[in-house]
């Protein structure tokens, strides 16, 4: 299978600190790829580099055959790469529904010359509202659709972030600890949902996750980072029994 995303020798320096050090990896289309590593190993920085929200020091990001290094985050999103954040990053002063509607691409009513002409976009907006309804339902947030995002629980915030990212109809979804702050049963359900999205919609996932017991049930392949470098990669079984990984990760 041709990889949907390929990273070539990515590097990011923060002053003297090399947060990401010569990382190359591949994410095949339709896969669920895990990215693990101890705190501060550079996982979030790597996600930021792929999305363009942090500038690369060097290296290349190739998505769908095109070099996207140096592109702006909005351009990268338009190409089909969406993300979730490690810290809850919603529009807290908006309702859950508005959070979900904002990322819809190519909205007619987003053009300032159409915006005042309600009739020109109202039908389209109603269609988007129905899609958002479905997205909220998928993450069990439909009952909360008109609550402010700030009034949701920590776990619900993570779920809303996933629903919001899906509204951009991404091909590749990068999630940074999607189950942080979520109760164990719901955390498992989130991953079941991720697997369904992959199976039904062909969405590809790169997931940073500390809950290895859940991740290992769903991931097709796992990369391990340590001090900015790629320490190991392999199938779940290979990683689970990898001596160096166990040493840095579990302290055995």
């Amino acid at each position: 299978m041709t990889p949907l995303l390929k990273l070539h020798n990515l590097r990011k320096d923060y002053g003297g600190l090399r947060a990401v050090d010569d990382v190359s990896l591949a994410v095949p289309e339709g896969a669920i790829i895990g990215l693990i590593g101890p705190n501060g190993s550079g996982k979030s920085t790597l996600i930021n580099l792929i999305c363009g929200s942090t500038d690369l020091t060097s290296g290349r990001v190739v998505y769908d055959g095109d070099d996207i290094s140096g592109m702006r985050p909005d351009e990268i999103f338009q190409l089909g790469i969406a993300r979730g954040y490690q810290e809850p990053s919603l529009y807290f002063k908006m309702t859950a529904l508005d959070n979900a509607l904002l990322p819809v691409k190519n909205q007619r009513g987003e053009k300032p010359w159409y915006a005042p002409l309600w009739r020109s976009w109202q039908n389209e907006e109603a269609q988007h509202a129905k899609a958002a309804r479905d997205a909220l339902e998928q993450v069990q947030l439909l009952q909360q659709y008109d609550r402010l995002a700030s009034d949701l629980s920590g776990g619900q915030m993570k779920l809303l972030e996933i629903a919001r990212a899906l509204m951009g109809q991404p091909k590749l979804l990068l999630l940074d600890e999607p189950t942080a702050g979520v109760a164990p049963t719901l955390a498992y359900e989130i991953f079941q949902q991720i697997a369904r999205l992959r199976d039904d919609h062909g969405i590809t996932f790169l997931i940073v996750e500390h809950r290895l017991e859940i991740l290992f049930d769903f991931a097709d392949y796992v990369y391990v980072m340590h001090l900015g470098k790629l320490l190991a990669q392999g199938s779940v079984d290979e990683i689970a029994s990898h001596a160096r990984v166990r040493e840095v990760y579990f302290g055995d």
Partner: protein
Amino acid sequence: MINIDIGATAVAVLTLFGIYSLMAISLNLEYGVAGVPNFGKALFVSIGAYTAGITYTRLLPLLAGDIAIHPCGPTMGDALQLRSEIMASQPAAGFVNLGLTFIIAAVAAGAVGFAASYVTLRLKEEWFLALVLLVGGETVRILVRGADDFICSHNGISGVAQPFYFIQDPRTSALFFMLLALTLALLAYLYSQRLLHSPYGRMLKGLRENEDITRGLGKGVSLARAQIMAVGSVIAAIGGVLFALNTGFVNTNDFVVTLTLDVWVMVVLGGIGNNRGALLGALLIALMDRFTQIGAIALNMSGSEIEFNYVRFIAFGLILLWMLRYRPQGLLPESRLTTGAHAVVKREIGALQ
């Protein structure tokens, strides 16, 4: 005792309310909705006023079939007499001139607003824009003041009559001008309400709350901001044209930083992000303007030497402090919903149950 003509005072306050509403709505769209701290409101208002200064002296005589007389220097008096006569006897020329003034002012201010935002906001620090516009506004004012031929430097242009000047009875004439100001304010209000409750308004609110996330969700943030600056600047410039017509005078002294601060007080007082709040703020400041003025006159007559401007500044300072302490969201908090999408979802859920 001073006699207050209630009818004339009401007309004056409502005219001022219409003009201030345009300015407040413009800042509310930019700062209240989109979070762009435009500290150059006086600049964009002044573009409207300067445009009126130019058209009344250069364009109006041509429209009336006369030859334009140089408005400054030795021919100043003749030029003033000519435009007063035209405004008194040829209403059609006056209206065409005003229409063109609105168009020129809108195009000029919109272009400046768009360019200022696009250039400075690419630097990521939005307060840089605030600073550039604050300083830029003052710089433009000093340049205009220094230019002898533009609007006659420190003399300014007088006789910038409102278009109903041809009506003999000054009260009727003032009443019509008030209706013009209120109509334009109403149009601006309806337009901005529609803008606010649209996907574009939602995106602007999004970038006000979190620019990085909004960019990460695929929105061209710099462009959206430049667009709302253009819209806001057009509305401000139309307010500026009316402002000049209301005083009958175009003078750089009117467009100092305090005008910008007045508009900020209106928006902070009325409710940031709420267009009705902007109207309320404009009304309260228009009322306060009148009554601090009357109050100051009364004080002066009773022998005190307090100046009108001081009374006004002190009152504004107290209002701002009180608001920040007790009601930072303003008198009218903003609406949480954006478009009609909530009604759609509500209906859908209802249909399922």
